[in-house]
């Protein structure tokens, strides 16, 4: 009905303005703008560098610790039956455990699993500052060590010797005993990889700087970033978990297509 198009459209516009949901939509748009503006404002104020050494940050961390961690780790981080002592674990350990969402622990289990991060970056830094102020321990790494610009081949060799038995040669992770597992390393930030090596979270052994030197750790990170950024040369990697997924794929698709072809070959043409 081409001759009706214009009046209908005009009516539609007017009807839209008088629609019962119009006011709700208007309020929603308004709220969105105010919220957006507020968020932009608050991030711009909060992005100021957290000074790890300042007494104020440490005090802040102490309060956060007392409210969120002390139930298991004790008021002075001296540990209890439910959680280990944190004296001497260093800022790196706190940054890893809290920064990946593993702490605070959701429940006791075979191991603390990664979940949505519970604290903001400033709160994590404050917690780390307080724990680091208790006793010396590994600091949060920074700078060149995390840039992923090291020697990929050396990193790959070190990874195969020290890490691949648990984390899989492609960093895809693997099973351990009694429900524990080594997590996949794809997409893990360079800082968290470094901190995990230095602190040995949960059942992972510690790889201190005498064992794998800081520049070698940088190479390991480089290798993992290389894996993240380059597709598998062998085609679809199916999760890189080897015979399980590859075997299953062949069973289903390889044998499936052979069965389908056999049925087709022997069926009578119509």
């Amino acid at each position, binding site marked *: 009905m081409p001759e009706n198009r214009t009046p209908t459209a005009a009516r539609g516009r007017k009807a839209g303005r008088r629609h019962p949901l119009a006011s709700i939509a208007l309020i929603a748009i308004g709220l969105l703008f105010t919220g957006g503006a507020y968020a932009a404002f608050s991030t711009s104020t909060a992005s100021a560098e957290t000074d790890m050494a300042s007494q104020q940050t440490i005090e802040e961390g102490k309060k956060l610790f007392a409210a969120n961690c002390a139930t298991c780790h004790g008021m002075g981080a001296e540990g209890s039956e439910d959680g280990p002592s944190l004296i001497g674990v260093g800022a790196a350990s706190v940054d890893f455990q809290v920064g990946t969402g593993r702490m605070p622990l959701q429940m006791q289990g075979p191991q603390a699993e990664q979940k949505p991060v519970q604290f903001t970056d400033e709160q994590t830094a404050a917690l780390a500052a307080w724990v680091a102020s208790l006793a010396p321990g590994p600091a949060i790494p920074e700078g060149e060590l995390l840039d992923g610009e090291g020697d990929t081949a050396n990193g790959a*060799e*070190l990874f195969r*010797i*020290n890490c691949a*038995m*648990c984390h899989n040669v492609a960093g895809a992770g*693997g099973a*351990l*005993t*009694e429900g*524990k597992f*080594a997590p996949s390393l794809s997409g893990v930030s360079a800082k968290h990889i470094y901190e995990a090596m230095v602190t*040995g979270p*949960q*059942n*992972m*052994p*510690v*790889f*201190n700087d*005498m*064992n794998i030197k800081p520049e070698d750790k940088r190479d390991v990170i480089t290798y993992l970033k290389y894996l993240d950024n*380059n*597709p*598998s*040369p*062998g*085609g679809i990697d199916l999760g890189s978990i080897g015979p399980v997924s590859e075997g299953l794929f062949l069973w289903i698709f390889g044998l499936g297509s052979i069965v389908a072809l056999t049925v*087709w*070959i022997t069926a*009578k*043409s*119509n």
Partner: protein
Amino acid sequence: MANDDNGGKDLTAADAHGARPSEASAGTAVVTRDAIGNPGFPPHRARMTDSDPTAERKAERSVYTLFYLSVVGSVWAIAAYIIFPIDAADPGSVRLNNLFIGLGLSLALLALGIGAVHWGKALMSDHEGIDIRHPVRGTEETRARAVEIFQEADQESGFGRRTLIRNSLIGALIAFPLPAVVLFRGLGPQDEDPVALLEHTMWKKGTRLAIDPSGRPIKASDVTLGSAFHVIPEGLQDLEHGKLEEKAKAAVLLMRLDPADLIEAPDRKGWSYDGIVAYSKICTHVGCPVALYEQQTHHLLCPCHQSQFDVTNHCEVIFGPAKRPLPQLPIAVDSEGYLIAQSDFTEPVGPSYWERH
């Protein structure tokens, strides 16, 4: 055609029914007198391509299109080999090269196969036929003639009569494979006794423990609580040859536990140093590297068959198919603070073998 064995006569379903082998020899077959009759073939159904000339032309078109596609696939595989060369510096080029050559070759083969099957199913004659199975045994005359031929050959060659020639021939045939046995023996270890080779490793009194792969010696103070070091004997990296063979036997995992956690047998009290223990990394089941160390539970897990060893208790087997604990390397500290071996392993490392004591 399919009916060669029926003397050129086409058998229908009804014929097949009539030709049931009722005269089969009673010694080799159970003859059932009241067997249910052969229902024969279902009625013949004409295909679309038999009745409809358009369908026939369409099928013909599909078949030759598939064959042409196969040609395209083959040509594409050649083109892909040239267009996507493997660049040694870029592993991604291998992926493209394999992918496109593979696609071309799969298209070539699949289209050829599918075209041939489609041709056979839709266009070739779909007339059904039966081949009657005939007895395998030859006729009496054939069999008698065969025996006669063998006897004649024996007579003429003198095989049965000239026993000296016959026996020397058999002897020559037996001797002929013997050089192969000697040649293949040459592939094995030569002037060394394999049993002694398996019993000993590179470790000896005073050999420093070094980090794999750099070969840097390890100080006891470097090994912090909860650490796991992958260890080779110092000097392994300088070996001219046999490096891998030596590493395969001498690889060691070094761990530091809280000394309070270690339960040590009295005769092994001096084998650890302040909670630092060293164990062979070679599984006693089939020799996989056991290195999945859990620093809280102190369990060592073998990735191949899930054997578990308890590091606190001299790597005793707590789960899985391994039968013996991992051999422990007795360690000490030298005057400069480096970790050294007190001796070689006191038992052979790795899986069992016949001469193992």
